[in-house]
């Protein structure tokens, strides 16, 4: 059955303490190539049957209504999983 992926990330202007905590550990673990880690959420929704444009719209609606909080987060991505 197909899966829709919804990605939700903290807004750039909003602090991300979880990302920051990971960030702080990187040098100590020797990962100096990366910076500004942000931690968001990934949701996978199973769809019975085909993913029509309509269904994708419904997923976007669900993301806007429940999965993301518009005052602190933005919907980075809604797509059919590869």
């Amino acid at each position: 059955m197909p899966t829709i992926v919804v990605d939700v990330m903290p807004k750039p202007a909003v602090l991300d303490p979880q990302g920051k905590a990971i960030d702080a550990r990187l040098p100590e673990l020797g990962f100096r190539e990366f910076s500004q880690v942000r931690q968001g959420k990934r949701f996978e929704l199973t769809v019975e049957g085909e993913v029509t444009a309509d269904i994708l719209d419904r997923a976007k609606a669900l993301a806007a209504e429940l999965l993301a909080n518009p005052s602190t987060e933005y919907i980075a991505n809604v797509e059919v999983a590869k």
Partner: protein
Amino acid sequence: MSAPKIGVVMFDAATDAPSVLRAVELAGGTPVKLHPKTTVAPDLADLPLVILPGGFSYGDYLRAGALAATQPIMRVLEDAVKAQELTLIGLGNGFQVLTESGLLPGGFIANDVPVFEHAEVDLVVENNTTAMTAAYDTGEHIRLVHKGAFTQYTATEEELEALEEQGNVVIRATESPAGSVNNIAGISSDDGLVLGLMASPEYAIEAGFGTDHAEGPGQGVDGQGLFVSVVRAAIAAKNGVVSE
């Protein structure tokens, strides 16, 4: 006069609800449990004030308060607030439900140190004209329990400006345990009908089971003032006195 009724929404796993019920009772109110699946408006002439208690409603797994905010009763309460018939107060997790519902500006993110923290917090009442602060003095210092993992208040520049300018920051921490912006702990909507406090006054209502106090460990009962305010507001509303 008979004890005024105060609604308390019993969200699944809102672990602070039993203590809120008790606090309302100790302050002279009669708590009325409201079921989150209710789609019928309670009799608001009789129930002018509703509290959303705190504590991990629906596990808070998605985001603190997110699933509670989608419960049917929230639509009912929202409508009543919009009709200027109801005062709605969110405590702790209940405040998160209010920002999730869009009834109050801003939102909550992970604590500065992103783990659950249980602490006592020193607060200053900055506005004592609201339904949750009327029994305090402006400038009064109070100490309450603060707990949670996603209790850092955040808002946009414009929202912050508006909050500060309107005097809608009702209670402020001297140092927010979560790192909240401007140390904001409690806020009000412009019309004063929606109020949120990121703290748990229900654990500072009984000597010996409260917060730290000059008189001894656990002797602090600064949370009483909040519930007394609430009961007074309910009485005033019932008598037709419009709250400011």
